[in-house]
């Protein structure tokens, strides 16, 4: 096995094949999982049925145990393009609600993480006292505080956008802080010495050497952070009957047994996640070009 990464073109065929196999398995599983209900219904109304009727029925149920992929895509299409953008039936509306708190939380978390990292790099007290706690706190299931933050901030009169963004911020700032500390420390001794020979102030050292050196680390952390920020926003929409957002859509789907609705919300959330990570990657390339990296 060679260690170099296969090119994009080399991957397309295999990816398509694996995806096709997954979809075929999905259709088969839909028949298998939905069959008991369908057979019960057929037998109940005394309808004679064969394999063909069974398969047709399992792929077109209203509340299937496992909806077939085309049902999910159809529901997704209908709720994205078939509904008014501001109506609660529109998935775009829900995605927008989730997206806004994801981005707000991501921005806050990024700022907080960078600030803490700068503090840690410049203060020995923060380095030896605070950093171990930041690292240890990555082993903590922070997401568990989500319902409490939403309810407590909600009872203080803050809009849901803020409380969801606070959760996302909590989740974001750990990877960013840890990555940025690594990045700000990445300049070599030689480079730091050179800055000293130019009698650069600590602020100049930070702006001209440490921050540019930390940019690749920042983006590596940002990719992780924006994905967790999305998870934070969705989980923040779960408690106390939130009315809008992909998380609320998941929850209402699970209350009313609307499996197709859950799956299409999941599809939307996945698309959103992939798009957000891709957007961070695009910004990274732009910044790299702006900073003069070889394209």
């Amino acid at each position, binding site marked *: 096995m060679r260690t170099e990464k296969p090119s994009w073109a080399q991957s397309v065929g295999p990816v398509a094949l694996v*995806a096709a196999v997954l979809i075929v398995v999905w259709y088969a599983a839909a028949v298998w999982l939905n069959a008991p209900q369908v057979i019960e219904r057929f037998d109940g109304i005394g309808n004679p049925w064969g394999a063909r009727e069974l398969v047709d029925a399992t792929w077109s149920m209203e509340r299937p145990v496992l909806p077939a992929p085309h049902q999910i895509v159809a529901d997704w299409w209908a709720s994205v393009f078939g509904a008014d953008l501001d109506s609660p039936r529109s998935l775009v509306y829900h995605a927008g609600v989730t997206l806004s708190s994801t981005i707000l939380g991501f921005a806050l978390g990024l700022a907080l993480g960078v600030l803490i990292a700068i503090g840690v790099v410049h203060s020995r007290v923060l380095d030896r006292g605070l950093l171990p706690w930041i690292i240890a706190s990555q*082993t903590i*299931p922070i997401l568990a505080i989500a319902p409490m933050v939403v309810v407590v901030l909600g009872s203080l009169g803050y809009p849901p956008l803020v409380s969801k963004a606070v959760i996302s911020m909590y989740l974001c700032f750990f990877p960013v802080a840890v990555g940025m500390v690594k990045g700000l420390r990445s300049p070599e001794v030689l480079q730091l010495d050179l800055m000293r020979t130019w009698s650069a102030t600590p602020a100049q050292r930070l702006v001209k050497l440490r921050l540019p050196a930390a940019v690749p680390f920042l983006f590596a952390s940002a990719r992780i952070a924006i994905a967790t920020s999305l998870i934070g926003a969705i989980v923040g929409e779960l408690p106390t009957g939130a009315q809008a957002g992909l998380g609320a859509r998941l929850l209402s789907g699970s209350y009313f047994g609307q499996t197709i609705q859950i799956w299409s919300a999941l599809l939307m959330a996945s698309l959103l996640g992939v798009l957000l990570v891709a957007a961070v990657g695009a910004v990274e390339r732009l910044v790299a070009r702006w900073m003069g990296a070889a394209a």
Partner: protein
Amino acid sequence: MNRRNAMTALAVLVLAVIADALLSRVQGDGPKGAEAAAVWWLLAGWVLLLWFVLGRLAQLRGRVLGLLAPALFGLAMLYLWEIAVVGWDVPRVLLPAPHAVGEALAARWGALRADFRQTAVSVVAGYCAGCGAGFGVALLADRYRLLQRGLLPLAGMAGAVPIVGIAPIMVMWFGFDWQSKAAVAAIVTFFPMLVNTLAGLASVDAMHRDLMRTYGAGHLATLLKLRLPSALPFVFNALKINSTLALISAIVAEFFGSPIYGLGFRISAEVARMNVDVVWAAIALAALAGSVFYGLIALVERAMTFWHASYRS
């Protein structure tokens, strides 16, 4: 003990005495007027002294001495939390004082223990299933290049997807008990294990691989004697990431429906009743469990990959 260390020890003692005095002043009705101002000025001085002591402690090195600075920092944060909440009469609903959380933990210990057991069962079951499956599929994908080329981009994409949203589906399929939570944890932990194991198996030095070839070693022998051992650090990395992920996903899955116990259930139920101190107690328990879980894996890692560069300082 030299004079410098004696000074630091004395400063720590002074810190403790002032801290105790301040806390007893702000309890009850709290100080009024000029006394209140004095208390807050004293607290500001206390923070300055703390910073000085931490600066001293931060210079200490060594296995035990190096832990002093983070330990004092953590204690000081707890103390400032306590004194801020007690002193400013922060509503219990907003933020309970640490001592209230401790009392809640003690008072509700029976219920919380049952919650913990319920969640732990689903976490461990899902963790083992997800990590095992991820490892197995990685071995398969390593053997068949086509599978690897097809699977790796998809698995990488899974990192951007909020998989935990699958929870309501799993609750519908597997019911309210631990099985549905284990299923969510298994799915969430599968992908990091797959991606990391594949990266680990690919990390082998070309020189080492050539050496195995000169020995005439086949795929299996190379895998067992060279590539799996050198993939171990990557596998343990996934095991550590997954320990947190499994706990989080089990707790979130419990928000979607669970029997009348489980840490996630306790959190969502007590939040609805505004018993925030019990919620914090449940979170503290989850945090402790997460750290212990992580620590255990780190210990096993140390025992199994003692040869790795990161442990041979």
